[in-house]
């Protein structure tokens, strides 16, 4: 049987008056690449530290392969951590850093040498034995930190924003490498990040956290395509959120009203009636010449054109006052979109998603201070890391 299944049951952690983790239920399968994604202060790092054993839960259970670990100190848990700052011991060379854990476990001297060398080869650091951490680049230090944890063959590897300190290009390369190492070793990875792109590209499943709670757990595709809450829709990439009145189902879609304009929404909570939000991804929004006829079309005016290199981003102000973003791949076609051009914005019904009403109330708060990827949700002020 594969080991490394982690189950968090009603896990809660309180620091004084602040609740960092608020009764979460997460079940991570053995051998899975599982990401905890959220803005800073959402409780993701605390969750990781609870699994590692650096913090004691206020309430709830942490099950590793079925047995509760809450009372086990960190050095007796079959989990290892890759720290955000790497925390390599500066007074030890690469070999001794990697061998640290093996020596604590009283592994035979010859075994230590072969295992350290094997894992250093695996992270492409063969021959770096005698270097001190201070003589390595950021990416190399990151690999040593990874090797130091992997060499112990843990059931679960915890990674706390391990690529956070690296530049964009190296980060991309290491993302792929991490993923392939995870597949090769078959270890459960629990990966904490605030970078939604990183989570989407690497994970088998993602848990989006906010304010100490789990908003949604899903695969990257489903998380992106079918966000369950306004927070998730907003946090994962850019999305257009529009406040509408739902008027009930119409076949397998939902009739909604955006101001005076009727919009047919083809997915999400189509049976809903009353005030709610609809969401659409910018790459699904179509911009057409002014006065193009058809359903789900709203007139507007181009407010801003942003050149992104590979794509163009349009910001359009609708007649209702809402602003929406549209994204176009730079395929070479000529577009004469100048600021102030009147256009017709098309929201294809199959891409327009009705969000559940339960989130509508909290959304009013969440959206008020320009909720964005930086995470200005009301929960941000709360809690540690």
């Amino acid at each position, binding site marked *: 049987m594969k080991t490394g299944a982690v189950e968090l049951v009603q896990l809660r952690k309180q620091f004084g008056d602040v609740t960092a983790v608020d009764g979460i239920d997460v079940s991570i399968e053995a051998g899975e690449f599982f990401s905890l994604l959220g803005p800073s202060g959402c409780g993701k790092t605390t969750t990781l530290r609870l699994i*590692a*054993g*650096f913090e004691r839960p206020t309430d709830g259970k942490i099950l590793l392969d079925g047995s509760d670990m809450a009372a086990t*100190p*960190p*050095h007796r848990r079959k989990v*290892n*951590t890759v*720290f955000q*700052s790497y*925390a*390599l*011991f*500066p*007074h030890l060379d690469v070999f001794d850093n990697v061998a*640290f*854990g093996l020596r*604590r*476990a009283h592994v035979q001297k010859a075994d230590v040498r072969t295992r350290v060398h094997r894992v250093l080869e695996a992270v492409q650091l063969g021959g770096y034995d005698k270097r*001190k951490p*201070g003589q390595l680049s950021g990416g190399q230090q990151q690999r040593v930190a990874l090797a*130091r*944890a992997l060499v*112990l063959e843990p059931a679960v590897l915890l990674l706390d924003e391990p690529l956070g300190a690296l530049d964009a290009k190296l980060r991309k390369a290491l993302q792929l490498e991490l993923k392939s190492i995870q597949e090769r070793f078959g270890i459960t990875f629990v990966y904490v990040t605030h970078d939604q792109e990183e989570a989407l590209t690497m994970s088998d499943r993602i848990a989006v956290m906010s304010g100490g709670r789990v908003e949604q757990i899903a695969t990257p595709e489903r998380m992106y395509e079918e966000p369950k809450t306004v927070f998730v829709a907003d946090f994962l990439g850019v999305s257009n959120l529009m406040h509408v009145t739902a008027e009930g189902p119409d076949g397998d879609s939902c009739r909604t009203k955006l101001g005076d304009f009727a919009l047919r929404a083809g997915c999400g909570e189509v049976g809903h009636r009353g005030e709610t939000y609809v969401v659409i991804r910018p790459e699904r929004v179509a911009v057409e010449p002014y006065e193009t006829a058809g359903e789900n079309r709203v007139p507007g005016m181009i407010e801003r054109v942003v050149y992104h290199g590979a794509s163009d981003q349009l910001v359009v102000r609708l007649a209702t006052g809402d602003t929406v973003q549209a994204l176009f791949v730079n395929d070479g076609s000529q577009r004469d979109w100048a600021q102030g051009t009147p256009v017709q914005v098309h929201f294809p019904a199959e891409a327009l998603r009705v969000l559940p009403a339960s989130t509508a109330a909290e959304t009013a708060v969440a959206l008020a201070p320009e909720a964005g990827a930086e995470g200005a949700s009301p929960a941000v002020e709360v809690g540690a890391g």
Partner: protein
Amino acid sequence: MRRVRDWFANPWGQPRALGAVTWLYMAWSIVPVCIAILFSFNNGRSRSVWQGFSTRWWWGDPNNSVLHDPSLRGAIEQSLKLGGLDMLIAVPLGVGLAIGLTRWRGYGARPVNYLMLFPLVTPEIVMAVSLLLVFSLLYSIPFGTEAQTLGQVTFSISYVVIIVRGRLLSIGPEYEEAARDLGASQVGAFRLALLPLLWPAVFASFIVVFALSIDDFVVTDYLSAGQSTQTVPILIYSSVRGTATPALNAVATVMVTITLLSVGLAYFVYRWASRSQPATSGSALNEIAALEV
């Protein structure tokens, strides 16, 4: 005129005015020491009129030279003895206290952190009188080496705590957490991860405590048991009114030499201990300069 001013201000290089001030200060503070050392080689009894070179106050004079006068030799020995004892007791205690205050934080940590500063800001004479009263009335500790050592340890610990605490705060808890994560017990994490990173601060503490101890006059004098336990500062002070000979200068020179040697030694040990720590370079004094109060 303008050229002179420009040369002095030196707008594209190091400002010469600052250099001049630095060197003036160096000269100002070193000249008295050099003169004191020079007069230990005086051929007469005077400590202010040069009468030719001799080594009589060092070993030539059969009664009054440093080598032959037991009171002079005793003072040097007592100073070194107290310095050594103070280092051996105050540094381990201070290191332990600093770790306790920063790592195993409890409700009392904050007030204790402020109380640690008390010995630094209390006038030494007040401290000495209090120690005298407490030692004699409350604990009946015999005056002399025991009381002097305890007295010096009392105020030295504060310096050790402050030096080590600053270092601990800059190290952060992640090294210990990493060690624990990799299978080290709590004690193991301290020994294998924290202590090696703490060595530079420990060495800095040794130097500071030694310097404090051999320099101390008030507390050491109050808690002494007369002539037999007088240290070099006490000896020099009490001889000024009596028969001061250049032998006193020789004693002072011995102390200066020992201090310089120990600082020099500590500097190299410090460099060696912190060789793999990029965050710190230079001397142990960085530790003191980086104090976080």
